[in-house]
């Protein structure tokens, strides 16, 4: 099971981050998630989502969805503004064993959906 991102549906509520962190820690924070909201360019209202997989990152940007290797993104200095950059976080396992990933359950806009197969 994997997760698809429709970035233009995202309204930057960050529920996905907190839900994913909860699944890791059984507590509430924004530090442990495998998905991260990019909200640094506030004056431009530019926002997006970054999902960490085992060997790559899915970048859900307003321009479209792109998959980048972790090495490539690290070389670009990417990973988003965070005290705990996405590159050092655990990879998404699609909430293995659960019917629906936590981030998808909490997403109120349909920006995140599960993909089977």
């Amino acid at each position, binding site marked *: 099971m994997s997760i698809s991102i429709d970035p*233009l549906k995202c*309204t*930057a*509520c*960050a*529920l996905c981050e*907190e*839900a994913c962190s*909860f699944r890791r*820690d*059984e*507590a*509430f*924070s*924004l*530090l442990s998630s495998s998905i991260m909201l990019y*909200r*640094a*360019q*506030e*004056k*431009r*209202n*530019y*926002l997006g989502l970054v999902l960490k997989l085992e060997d790559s990152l899915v970048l859900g*940007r*307003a*321009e479209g969805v792109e998959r980048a290797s972790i090495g490539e993104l690290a070389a670009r200095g990417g990973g988003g*503004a*965070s*005290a*705990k950059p996405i590159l050092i976080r655990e990879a998404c396992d699609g909430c293995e064993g659960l019917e629906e990933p*936590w981030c998808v*359950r*909490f997403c*109120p*806009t349909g920006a995140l959906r599960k993909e089977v197969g």
Partner: protein
Amino acid sequence: MEFLFNGSMLLVDLGRKSCEEQPLPPDLLSTCLGGARANLALLQEFPSADLVLGSGPFTGLPVPGACLGVATWKDKERITHTPLHLFAGMELKLSGFDFVVISGASPEPLYLWLHDGIADLEPAGELPRDNWEAVDALRRELGDELVQVLVAGEGPCLGLGYWSSADRVGLGGAWRERGLRAVCSRGLGIIDAADPGAFAEACAGLVREVRDSLPEDLHGLEGIIGRLRGETFDYHLPLLHRRRSCFACPYDCNIFLKTEEDPSHMEAEGEEEPGLLLTDAQALWLLEEAGADLREGVRLLRRAARLGAYPAGAASIGVEATDRELVDASPGAWEAPGGPFSPWAAPRPLYEGGDWMERQALAYTLGICPQLMLLSPALGPEAFCGLLRSGMELELEPGELLRICLEVAD
């Protein structure tokens, strides 16, 4: 252990330039729950203080609409509660302090920096009076673009980062006069629930219920205005770029309007400052009622945000206003039932049967957006009692919950 809270508060004396961390008073949360109600109790416990920034039990958690921090201000005999929305309430709570109790005044400008359970009062003598420049300067100094800044600039209205806050009582001017130019926070804390699994399941269910309770075509400030007018929920706003939610909110009420760039431009590159995030339905309403050109109106509101002028007051005096006229503009207020709550949210519930005062009292005490409380009937005392049970091991009946929350309105 204090479930759903950090368990600590900060006492700030601006005159002595001191910050002292203390555990929360015993029984504060079990008797007052948090938010505005707990802020009132802290003002009684610390009579030299006149300002408390507080969190509700749900602030910063995945409860729908749980973005809210509350600034409670005692000005002579009048006590008011100002909602701190967007990401400010969440970052404040996750910085490690549930409540910040402020007293005194400093002859020299200071800013308060809260992060990782640490508090510092720093000099702010060089901080620009323009709110946007001040936020940029603070984020550069603190090395983090996600720091949330409550900023007191030239005018009376507290700035919520770059954007206008829901302040209608002159918090910004009052902070500046006592030497407090900004409160900066960054939330990297971790909050525990008594029964984390049950609490998270209940949150997921409530997110779905709230989302399902909102009509599909209801979006943005224009949706709120449409409902107030009894007309079409959603109408075309020509400058609309994207709508945004506050933290944890299923409703995308904040609208980004681009005045300096094609609104359909979605790429990261482009104008540095292409527009304005508008969070104030009344300001948009007033611009429309006046028949103002929307682009010029939004430019006016952007000037107001930079100056720390009231957005609704700015909208009511027109696009030709000088900076001085903007700073001097009145708060502007819809005719709401009154009480100590900010008239920022809609003046009546936007669904059948709600009680405005009850909805506001619940919102300000529990840490839920007061606007969302007026939009969704799914957010009610029964649901909140369930969350308080699994989150804090508090056994409350809905009537008892309402009674505690409504003490804020007395």
